[in-house]
Structure formats: C-alpha cells, structure tokens
C-alpha cells in the first residue's frame, strides 16, 4: 500500500521534471533574445533605416514594413483560395477530387520551404527578370495555403450537417446557406487557422532568399525587392560587424514578440468567437 503510493508520487515528480526540462530550451532562447535584443530596442529602431557598417544607431523600419507587405500579399493570395478549397473538400467529402486535393495538401505541407523558394524563383522571378515583394509574398502564400485549407476543412467538418439542412429547409439557397450560416459558424476556427499560418510564415527565411531578396531601403512597390525581418536577421548575423549583430538581436526580439502576440491573439479569437452547437 505504502510502496504503491510512493511509486506513484515518484513517477509524478519525474514527469513534472521532464516536462519542465522540455520547456527549458524555449525559456533559454527567450531569455537570450530578450537579454540581447532589448538593448537595441528604441524609437529609432522602429522608424529608421539601417545604417552602413561602422555607424551606430539605425533601425529596421524597412524590414518591418517589408514583412508587413509580404504577409498582406501572402494573405491576399492564400486566404480566399485556402478557405474556398477547405470549404470544397469538406462539402464534397466523398468525391475523388477531394481525396486528391487532401493528398496534395498533405504533400504540400511537407515540401521544404527552400524548395518553394526555388519554384517561385523559376515561376515568377525569372519571367519578370527581377526579385520582388510579389514573388516573396506568393512564396509565403503557398506555404500558408495548406495550413488554411486544412484548418478550414477541419473546422467545417465539426459543424453539424443539420445546420445546413435547417437553412435549406427554410428555403435559403445553397450560396446563402454557406455564406450566412456555415462559414459564420466556423469563423473562429477559420480565423485562428489564418492567424496560426501567418505566425508560421512570419519567421520564414528560406523561401524569401530567392524571391523578396532583401532591400536596405524603404520600398512600397511590390514589384521591387523588399526586406523582411528574418531575411535581415539572416544577413546581419552573417556579417562581420558587431553593430549589425546587435541589430539582428533586436530584430529577433521584434519578430519573436510579433509571433507571440499572434499566438495570443489566436487563442483570444478562438475563445471569444467560439460557436456552441
């Protein structure tokens, strides 16, 4: 009796310790980034352009803006397509084509991001003869697409079919039923899927190397190269200049904060707009 309880307790303690150990790397990383990054964070970091090596100060405003532009382009490209695709495969579950799409989406998810970068390079950068924000955005969009398709499908699958029937039985058309009843009922799942996918691609570097390329200047033109936070971190941390290293730390801090905020937002969205059936 006594021994059984002791064994039980022991096991519990081991599990708790192991669980804490597994979160340790995350805590250490966060600690490191905050310690090194917070030093370079100030107002000018957000509004100024990067300075040539050797000069102090300077900021990453171009990269922040670039990241923003890239995400908007990626979103425009992937959200509509992803939601429609997810809706399609959840609506026509048993069709051959849905099976095929589902398979493609799964494979898509497994493609290394660098490969997507190269593909977009061949498809878009080569014909246009220039690196551009557009191509970078599309590369990120391609990465977001399978995530959005899957989260949409899974959300819609949880919506009872009786809801659709109720709407149809009231004389509503199929389109109205989907737009006014089914998609709103799944809005929290779809939205959090989108937010998660944004936070996933916000830190991507590889697909941007051959597409958005990077740009030390402010740029609003989507047909020109833009910088992004992960690209900037990649470039600056590879450089031999210590000033650039500290800027890279600062950028890492901004990026991490952005991703954490997105994650918190996702949680809030799915809690706030939770649909009870």
């Amino acid at each position: 009796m006594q021994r059984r309880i002791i064994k039980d307790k022991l096991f519990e303690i081991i599990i708790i310790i192991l669980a804490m150990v597994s979160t340790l790397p995350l805590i250490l990383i966060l600690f490191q980034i905050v310690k090194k990054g917070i030093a370079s964070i100030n107002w000018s970091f957000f509004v100024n352009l990067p300075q040539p090596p050797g000069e102090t100060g300077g900021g990453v405003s171009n990269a922040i803006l670039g990241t923003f532009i890239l995400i908007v382009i990626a979103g425009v490209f992937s959200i509509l397509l992803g939601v429609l695709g997810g809706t399609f495969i959840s609506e026509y579950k048993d069709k051959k084509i849905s099976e095929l799409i589902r398979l493609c989406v799964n494979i898509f998810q497994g493609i290394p991001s660098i490969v997507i970068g190269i593909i977009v390079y061949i498809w878009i950068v080569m014909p246009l003869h220039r690196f551009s924000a557009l191509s970078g955005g599309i590369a990120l969009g391609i990465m977001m697409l399978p995530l959005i398709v899957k989260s949409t499908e899974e959300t819609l699958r949880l919506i009872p079919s009786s809801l659709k029937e109720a709407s149809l039985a009231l004389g509503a058309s199929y389109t109205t039923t989907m737009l006014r009843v089914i998609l709103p009922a799944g809005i929290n799942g779809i939205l959090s899927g989108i937010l998660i996918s944004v936070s996933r691609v916000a830190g991507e570097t590889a697909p941007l190397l051959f597409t958005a390329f990077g740009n030390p200047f402010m740029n609003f033109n989507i047909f020109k190269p833009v910088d992004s936070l992960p690209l900037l971190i990649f470039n600056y941390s590879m450089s031999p200049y210590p000033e650039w290293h500290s800027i890279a730390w600062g950028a890492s801090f901004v990026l991490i904060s952005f991703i954490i905020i997105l994650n918190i937002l996702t949680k809030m969205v799915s809690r706030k707009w939770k649909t009870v059936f």
Partner: protein
Amino acid sequence: MENGILKILNFYAGYNVKTILTNINLSIPSNKVISIMGPSGCGKTTLIRCINRMHELQPDANFKGRILLNEKNIFETSPILVRRKIGMVFQKPNPFPTMSIYDNVVSGYILNGIKMPRIEKDRIVEETLRKVYLWDEVMDSLHRKGTFLSGGQQQRLCIARAMAMNPEIILLDEPTSALDPKATAKIEELITKIKKSVTVILVTHNTAQAARVSDFTAFLYLGELVEYGSTEKLFTTPKDKRTEEYLTGKFG
C-alpha cells in the same frame, strides 16, 4: 379526405438502385396533426423529406410520382418556394449558433433576403414566440444566442423558426427524440395547439406519441403504406394484420 391540402400520389423514392418508398398514396387534410409511424428504416423520414424536396439534395436520390400541395405538383414548383410553404423541424434541436434568439426566429426572412421594417420583425418575433409558448421564457434575452437555451426550449425555438414563415404545412421529424420527458410533454402539447394555424405532419417511432397527439395516423412498414386512418380507429381496431402486430409489439 378527398380535398386534402397535400396529396401524395403513386409515389416512389429511393437511392440509386435501392427503393425505399413504394407506391405511397396519402391525402392529408388541413389543420390536423398527421403522424407517420413505423419501425426504424421504414422510410418515414425519407417520405417527409420528399414532401419539402430535401430528399433530392442527397447524392443518388431518386423519386417517381406526384405530390400535390393545394392541387399543384411540388416538383413543378421551385424547391425554394416549396420549402417556404412547408417548414421542417429536425430530430436534434439546431438553432443557428451564430444568431440571436430574435434573429433565429426571423432567420427564414433573413436567409431569403426578405427585407422588412423593424416593427414588422418585432411583431413576427413576438407573435411566433407566443405561438410556441416561448415568449415568456425568453422575452428578456431575445438578443442572446439561441444555443444558451435548454434542449426543449431550443426545439421550440426551431418550431418558431419554421412557423415564422407562415408555412401551410410543418414537418416534424421525431422532434422529441433528443428531449427529456418533461420537454417532450411540452412539445406534444404545443403540437396539438399549433394545428389551429398549420397542418402538422409528425414522424415518430414512438407509437404512444402518435396516439396522443395526432388526429390521423399512417403506418409505414418496409417502405409501404400499410394503413392510414383516424388515430382512434387505427389504435383500437386496426384493419391490417401488420398494424395489429406492430401495435401489440410483435415486431418493430
């Protein structure tokens, strides 16, 4: 029963090669409660889903024959119009989860894009909720989500949603099978009362319920209409041997 509001004539329905309903002939008088009973899988639900043209939405569904609503073949009318005239309530309460109680009641109008002034909507909501005896319970929380209500209240809300469109017929597909006895009793009472304004077709596998609430009963067995007549007669002196056996619990 010659001049029924709804007449089903030589009607067959099924999926693919499987026939579910064979040669159904049924005339339904207006402002009465008609229950369709039978063991599970006998085609009760298929039959009422044909009446508001929901059956044909399923892949591989087929049918043959005519159903006349006020002497007009529903298969020659647009399904959207048919469904506005013939409302339906399902087994499990399913109010629209994103809509308030208020919006749920007028959802038929919202989803059909019918615009109307606020006062008119208020009137319809109150009138309909009173009809289903839900007004007193929800009048203070009209703008809360319908899914916060209890199961029985939700089902009454669903009946209200169907009634708000002023249908000629309302189809109830085992409306109490997901409810507790108390909520069931309330819905049954409601059914016997709403027949003043609408013809009710009730599908149930519960013979006691059919006996309690309906004026006429149809007994469906293996896709065939075995017997149809006044509930009093059918439950005391059924004409067909199969009805007798079903009612005495020999099968089903």
